[in-house]
């Protein structure tokens, strides 16, 4: 990371004297009893999809075991809506899409495991206005111009809201295959993202609750080509899961308190969350 230097040097300016040392410790932990692992994040633009696997011993480095014989059902207000067919390798997918502002309950069972269940609600779309695109001049001889994207995010007052941003641009591979190429974005004004998962940058409204926030993004793409910015409103479960997973993933030598990843699966492990995304198009004409 740019700018990150030897901070430890300050805490242990006596670095000449102190050092940390790692040794391997032998340990006997009780036998692990596997539980159902359910991973599903619904959004109104995609088919209902659920990934079912089994947990394993903490010391295991093996690949996770996908469960192909599970029964996965969807309920709404206690009423059975559908059963998910298995489409292969522990992935269960229905032909329907979820609806915004609806609450869903997922129940998963498999032989040898206690039944797992979870509830989530699909949020509405974020309210976006005042889209504008400008050219950011090249910062050096070896850099090109980039795209500045401006828009206003109107946050709903008196409630906690959570968002993610990601950017991409249409592209093709050498074989002519079309795909969306990831575009690096920097949200420098007035807030930064809090944490990320792959290409998604997450933030909450804690600094601007109920306000109309004018966001400025710098997108590393040719300003005269189309760049898509996806902004999604996400459930608290999804936000918390990504936040805690991110923290757990970088636990290093001074991580004294192990971070427990947020888990909303009853009698199981994993995530049942949702988001509702809209895609904004930016291009300088």
């Amino acid at each position, binding site marked *: 990371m740019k700018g990150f230097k030897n901070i430890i040097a300050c*805490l242990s300016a006596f670095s000449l004297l102190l050092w940390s040392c790692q040794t391997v410790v032998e340990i006997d932990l009780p036998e692990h009893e596997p539980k159902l692992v359910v991973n599903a994040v619904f959004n109104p633009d995609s088919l209902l999809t659920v990934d079912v696997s089994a*947990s394993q011993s903490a010391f295991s480095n093996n690949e996770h075991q996908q469960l192909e014989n599970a029964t996965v059902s969807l309920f709404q207000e206690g009423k059975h809506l559908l059963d998910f067919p298995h489409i292969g390798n522990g992935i269960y997918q229905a032909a329907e899409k979820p609806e915004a502002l609806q609450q869903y309950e997922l129940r998963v069972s498999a032989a040898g495991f206690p039944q797992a269940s979870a509830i989530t609600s699909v949020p509405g779309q974020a309210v976006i206005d005042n889209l504008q695109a400008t050219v950011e001049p090249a*910062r050096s001889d070896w850099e090109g111009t980039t795209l500045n994207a401006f828009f206003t995010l109107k946050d709903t007052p008196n409630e906690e809201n959570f968002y993610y941003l990601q950017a991409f641009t249409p592209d093709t591979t050498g074989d002519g295959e079309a795909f969306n190429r990831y575009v690096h974005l920097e949200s420098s004004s007035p*807030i930064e993202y809090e944490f990320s998962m*792959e290409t998604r940058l997450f933030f909450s409204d804690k600094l601007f609750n109920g306000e109309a926030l004018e966001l400025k993004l710098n997108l590393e793409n040719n300003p005269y080509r189309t760049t898509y910015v996806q902004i999604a409103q996400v459930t608290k479960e999804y936000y918390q899961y990504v936040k805690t*997973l991110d923290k757990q993933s*970088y636990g290093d030598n001074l991580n004294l*308190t192990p971070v427990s*990843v947020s888990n909303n699966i009853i009698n199981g492990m994993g995530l049942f969350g949702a988001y509702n995304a809209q895609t904004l198009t930016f291009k300088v004409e």
Partner: protein
Amino acid sequence: MRKNILCFSVSWLLFTCSLLAQSAMEQKITLHTTATLEEILTELSSTYGLRFSYSNNLVPLQQEVSIQAEDQPLKLVLDELFRDKNIRYTLLGEQIILNPVSRKENSQQKEHYTISGYITDAATGEALPGATIITEKTGASANTYGFYSLRVDGAPLHLRYLGYDPFYLRLPALKQDTTISFQLQPAPFRLQEVGISARKVTDLKEANLLSIRGEEMKELPRMMGEADAIKAIQLMPGAMAGREGSSDLIVRGGSPDQNLILLDGVPVYNVSHLLGTFSVFNPDAIKNVDLIKGGFPAPYGGRLSSVVDVQLKEGNNQRFSGEGAVGLISSKLLLEGPVKNGKTAYLIAARRTYLDLIIATLGALSGESMTSYNFYDLNAKINHTFSEKDRIFLSVYAGQDKFSDKQEFSLGSVLEEQKFRMQWGNITSALRWNHVYGPSLFSNLTFTHSRYSFGQDTELKTTESRFAEEDITFKRQVDYGSSIRDWGAKADFDYAAHPKHHIRFGGSYTFHHFRPEAVRVQADSISLTTDSFSLISAHEFYTYAEDQIQLNEHIQARVGAHFSGFAVNGTFYKSLQPRLALGYKFSDNLSVHTSFATMTQYLHLLSNTSTGTPTDIWVPATDKVKPQRSWQVTLGGATLLAQNKLELTAELYYKKMKDVAEFKAGSNFVNDFLRSGPETNFANFVAPPYESRISSGEGWSYGSEWMLRKRHGKTTGWLGYTLAWSWRQLEGINFNQKYPYTYDSRHNISIVINHQLTEKLSIGGNWVYHTGFITTLPSANYKAYNEPLYQPDSWSPSIETVDYIGEHNNYRMPAYHRLDLSMTHTKKKKWGERSWNISVYNAYNRMNPYFIQLSSPGTYYKNSSQRMLYKVSLFPIIPSVSYGFKF
């Protein structure tokens, strides 16, 4: 009430005369016999060359007495011989003159008068809290300010204080209540095996109390050349350190925030420098440190587990003097002296680290710009004696740690400048007024101010240069702050109502200002501000009363109550806390005691780390978060062994705590800081109000503590052992089931020894052992959810595995043990005294576990398909040297 005041001049006269006699009277006598007084005097004359002068007609020497004295001072032996015999003795030159006690004198002795005044150090004028003044039948000890009050009947007075020559005095016949102040002479060199302590461990007031004087503290081995009060206490039974090297104090299974740490009576909220490596107390300025672990006297309240009372020196009112030290990472200097006629004295002590200079040098050598860190602390005190009745003290403490960094990056025409600052520190001040209303009533009125704040700010400035155009500048500043500020007043009264009753009463009021978390983001024209829990004001008060009762020769009781209240956000909490203690003395050398105390704590310290850091947040109880409460019972005993040279104490305790609080898993500022460095943006870590981020529940702890201590002579030190259990049960943690507290440790042993080899050279060492702390390890792992954007020509890493944290605190780490050694060489110089101290921390380089961690998923160790468990150790052998001076 009329009184005859014998001021300093008179006391000095008595004192000086007594000193002259003292050497002869200190002569050691061994005598085991039953015979008439005359026969015994003859034996003393022939064996020790003593000369007695008396008249056979007037002095009745045919009475038979029995005496057993082994290596006792002559003074004690004579007192014992002539007790209740109506015989008085006086040393005149080399002769001991015996006279009958006249009827008049006898009748006067039967009348009781009260003497009162201050007991101070003859060399510096410092008050000697805890100094004892006793007669055969009664006794008293000086309070925190050195004031005593004693009902006397003409019997000789004995004054004692650890590290000072004992002082014997027979008062002339008193006709009324009298004010007498005493000055004790420091023992020049503590080589004598004096077997009598000032504060006897068999006294009820010593139960559950551990104390260490500033001088004793400096005899212990030092870490990086720094003597440290908190680290000294951590070596005592019942108290232990948190993570290695930290200034956390775990007392009887309580958490670090449950200790009321008082600096001259003012609460200090954060006692750490350098993230816990050193405490904020300058060792040169410390007079005495008391740790009360249970059976809390009624004046104390507001924390559940302990009171750490750090008393600083007041300032030398006899002469200008100073001391200081130069260590590996810091230096300190203390200056003190009188201002006018010895009625006013001042003390100023300062300490500063030069870590920033070391880092800057390293940076210059490596050619890299490096971060800067420093800390300092300053104690300033002044006191003035208006009269024997009135004294006033003003003290100020200020300390701060500061970390800063500045970076510049240039990329083409763009210049980016980052500034980062983080600072934290305490400021405390106290204005005290001691007033003596009469021989039996003493008061102390104190006005206090205490502030702890933590702040961090980052500034990012980007400037883009353009030809023929104005530069474009973008600037963003993020400030994060957390603070607590108190204003308070308290009044304490000591009332020696009756020889069998010592009453204390008083009250206190504190106005708290909390600002748990505040963030401000300023970016060009936009400003965003958030207070996760905006400014909170709270009112806290308490009142108390306590009577220490001498029921009879054997039974002593302390009966009291502490009533406190806390008003915050329209909610009012109140708590009546009974405080009871009972002691039974089988003899002067053997006693048992029991106590019961309840405590209420209206503040919570929320921390994401398992060791104290400046980012810990002090927050008040509110309508949603209840105050913490506890009750504790103790049963103990104390005895003096080996002719009173050794103190042996034992305690059993059981403590129950309610509504203790901990942060749920969430932001970990320190980890984020270490990961991101100056780019850490604290605004990102601000979370919803703390009330929704904590778990509350109960706690239990119980155990037994043993201590064998020697405080006099060439060899001093102690052997301590603690057997303890500590549990927690918090909502939402460990599936609501009880679990061992993070610092639960079954066995804890400490051995501390200091030996004075010669007048110049002393050596010392300590060895500590405790059962390993407990920690949480994952109990399973499972597949992570991720949704990568399909990129056919590139691969971006995603998290594949989640570690499932099941049972909380499910793994006990290996045992901790460590040996520290020290050697001090002191030499007198024309200008004063200098000393060299060489210390070795962790002498046999034990790799103690700092924490335990599972290897990351997908990493392989020696081709094993299993993930491995690592023990991480932090502190290896650390030698250090420091130079000290005194003048």
